[in-house]
Every structure is written in structure tokens, then in C-alpha cells.
């Protein structure tokens, strides 16, 4: 078994116009940079993208959005990207805004074979319109449905050839749950090792969820908000 494919272009070769994609990352942190570039280069359009937000105008998913490749976004937040915000307000982009916990749970449910669930988030808000509300133990909850995709594009830190994945710090975010919720999961990793090269106790995504893997290259890892503190003398 070898899930390793030659490069990002090969990995996204069968992603067609109109595909539904999950793309990992929280803003630019934990984005699959190589796969996003390949998708941009390939020029596929009419995409539905399920991702927490859309990076900034010139980075991450923002590049696909600026190029007009995306028809619909399912996200929790449009801020930090003026094009996303403006096109959502104008209605030239179909945007479904979802509370972040509901968003995460819908993806988890999609991967776990649970078609719907009840959550307290959003009761009494515009999000509740048209949704079933049911009381449990005297408190109202909203019915929410699973999310699934044709492809998930995932960024891992280390991987083995069988698709077992580890992540690094908060770059983990939505990547492990998205890996479970697509028909085809394509992962890129900073380092790919032979099976046995990862500590089995530390594997976060079991390889069963991953169909394709690439060795990522030339990571730029842009920082959205560089916040630092002053070093006191002696530190």
C-alpha cells in the first residue's frame, strides 16, 4: 500500500468543476498550501468550499475566491477578507454562515455516520429559521445536519506512507475532522516517513481516513497577526 502520489498537481487531478471541498485551516494556520496552489493553477470553478473562513485576499482560500473559482462558501466567519465580506453582503457569493461549534460537529457527524443532531447553539437567533427545535429536559435545541464533501484537503505535520497523520500545535484545528468526512481525503505533510516511523500513541488521524498523500514543499506559513512582547533584559 502506498498512498503517496507524485505531487500536488497529480493529487488534485480529478477534482472537477462543481466539486464540494472541505479545506483545513483556521484562517491561514494549517492550510494545505501546496494543494491550494495546485487547485488555483488547475483553474477549476463553481466550487463549494467548506472551511472556517477564507484566509486573507492574497493568501489561502482567498486566492481561489479572488479568482472567481468558488460559487459557495460554508463558513463561520467572513472577516479578515474584504472580498469575502463584500461579496457576501452583495449576494454575489452564496455564503452559509454556521456557528463554529455547529460547523465542527456537522463535519464530525459527517465522518461518523450521524446524519443529524441537536445543539443549543443558535436557538432564538436567525440561524434557527426553518430548523426544527425540540426541548430536552426543558431546554430548546436546534436540529442540525451533517456535512460531507467530495474531497477534503488536509494539512498535516508528519505522515507515514499509509496516511497516518500527526499535526503541529494549533495548525491541527479542523484538519482531523475534515479528514473523516470526505469521499476522498488528500493530505499534504511537511515530512513523510515509512510505516513505523511515527509513534502509534501519537497518531491523530488514523490512515484509514486518508486516500492520497503528498510530500509538501516550500511552506511559507504566513502569519495573519504578528503579536509579540518585549524581551526584558536577561530574558
Amino acid at each position, binding site marked *: 500500500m502506498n498512498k503517496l502520489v507524485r505531487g500536488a498537481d497529480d493529487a488534485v487531478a480529478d477534482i472537477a468543476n462543481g466539486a464540494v471541498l472541505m479545506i483545513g485551516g*483556521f484562517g491561514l494556520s494549517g492550510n494545505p498550501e501546496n494543494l491550494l496552489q495546485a487547485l488555483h493553477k488547475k483553474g477549476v470553478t463553481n466550487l463549494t468550499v467548506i472551511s472556517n473562513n477564507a484566509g486573507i485576499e492574497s493568501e489561502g482560500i482567498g486566492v481561489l475566491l479572488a479568482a472567481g473559482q468558488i460559487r459557495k462558501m460554508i463558513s463561520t466567519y467572513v*472577516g479578515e477578507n474584504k472580498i469575502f465580506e463584500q461579496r457576501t453582503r452583495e449576494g454575489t457569493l452564496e455564503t452559509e454562515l454556521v456557528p*463554529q*461549534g455547529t460547523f465542527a460537529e456537522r463535519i464530525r457527524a459527517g465522518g461518523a455516520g450521524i446524519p443529524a443532531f441537536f445543539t443549543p*447553539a443558535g436557538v432564538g*437567533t436567525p440561524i434557527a429559521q426553518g430548523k426544527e427545535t425540540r426541548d430536552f429536559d426543558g431546554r430548546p435545541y436546534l436540529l442540525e445536519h451533517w456535512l460531507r464533501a467530495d474531497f477534503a484537503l488536509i494539512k498535516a505535520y508528519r505522515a507515514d506512507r499509509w496516511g497516518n497523520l500527526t499535526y503541529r500545535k*494549533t495548525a*491541527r484545528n479542523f484538519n482531523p475532522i475534515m479528514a473523516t468526512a470526505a469521499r476522498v481525503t488528500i493530505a499534504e505533510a511537511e515530512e513523510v516517513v515509512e510505516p513505523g516511523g511515527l509513534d502509534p500513541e501519537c497518531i491523530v488521524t488514523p490512515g484509514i481516513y486518508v486516500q492520497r498523500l503528498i510530500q509538501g514543499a516550500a511552506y511559507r506559513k504566513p502569519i*495573519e497577526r504578528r503579536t509579540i*512582547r518585549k524581551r526584558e533584559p536577561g530574558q
Partner: protein
Amino acid sequence: MKDQDKRMLIARRVARELRDGYYVNLGIGLPTLVSNLVPPGIEVVLQSENGMLGVGPYPYEGEEDADLINAGKETVSEIPGCCYFNSADSFAMIRGGHIDMAVMGAMEVDERGNIANWMVPGKLIKGMGGAMDLVAGARCLYVAMEHTTHDGGPKILKQCRLPLTGLAAVNFIVTEMGFMRLTPQGILLEEIAPGLSFEQVQAATEATLLRSPHLREMPA
């Protein structure tokens, strides 16, 4: 009072609510200031909904890491004992009632504890991010905000006018004018900023405030 002074006053008062062993989620902006004001001698663990417990201060210059950010997408650092988890686990701990205290800003709060802070129809759409889950799931919700809008208009209302983030969710409101508790009868003013009268706070508030029989000066 300058905006920055107001914000620090509010953050300092919120910080006095922290207790040893609390797991706390701080929202973006003013609430983040609380992280620098943890009282000495207690251990508090900060949660960031993008998947971290044990968020530390901003990193020293040169130690910034694109893989280590808070929910405001600012670079942060680790404290010893920190851990990472995925976004579904993060919101399971939020909705599941495991977060002792959440602090967030608001555009509007009303007498029933309803809160609005995610959109202004026709003007501003940012998205709710994790706010709807936090207000529904945190054990105790503190709203930390300036008492009025930039134009001096009220933000503490009889009934919210903006689209809601959550129903009957707010437990406490902390502003530069006072410290308020949401009760079944309405908003109880328990502490008042030095130099202000009850009537002055009421005049800046659309909701009818209840005067606590133990009304005292808000500690700085």
C-alpha cells in the same frame, strides 16, 4: 475617560472574578486584555476555541510561530501543561459545560440576558465564529464592553434590536460604569464606578436598572 483607560478598568474588574482552577475562554479584543491581569497566586487555564488549552502570552520577537495562534489569529505562546485538540473536541468542551467562564464583547445586551454581537443588517457581516456556541455552553458568561456606543447611545437595552447571538445567556455585564448581575427580575447594579451616581448610570442605560441593596464602589 480615554477609551484605553475604560478598557483597562473593565479588564481589571473582570480579572477579579478569576478563581484558582478555572478554565476560561476570552473573546477577541477587550476580553483578551484579561489574560495579562490574572491575580497572583492562582492558576487559570485559558482556552482558545481553535484548539488549545494553556494559551500563554504573546511570544518574544523571533519566536512567533504560524502554527501557534489564538482565536483572534494572533501569535501566542505555550505555558507548561498546555495541550492541543481538534475543533470538534474544542466545542464539545464548550457546549458540554466544561468552560467555567467565558468573557466576550457585545454590541447589545438586554434585560433578559439576550446578547447580540455578530451582525448589523445591511452594514456589517463578520459571522458569528464561535460566539453562539460559547454563549450557549459556557457555565458563566461575562459581557465585557464599554457602557455606550461611540455616539453615546445605549448598549444595555430593554430588548435587543440586532439579530441575536443567544437567548438568556448573559450572567454578568462589566462596563466602565459598573458591575451588573442578570437576575430573573432584571439587571441588578451591584457595583458602581468611583465618582458616578446610580442616576448617571441609569441615564446611560435603556434598560431599567435595579439598585442592589448592597450597592458598592467598583474596585479598580
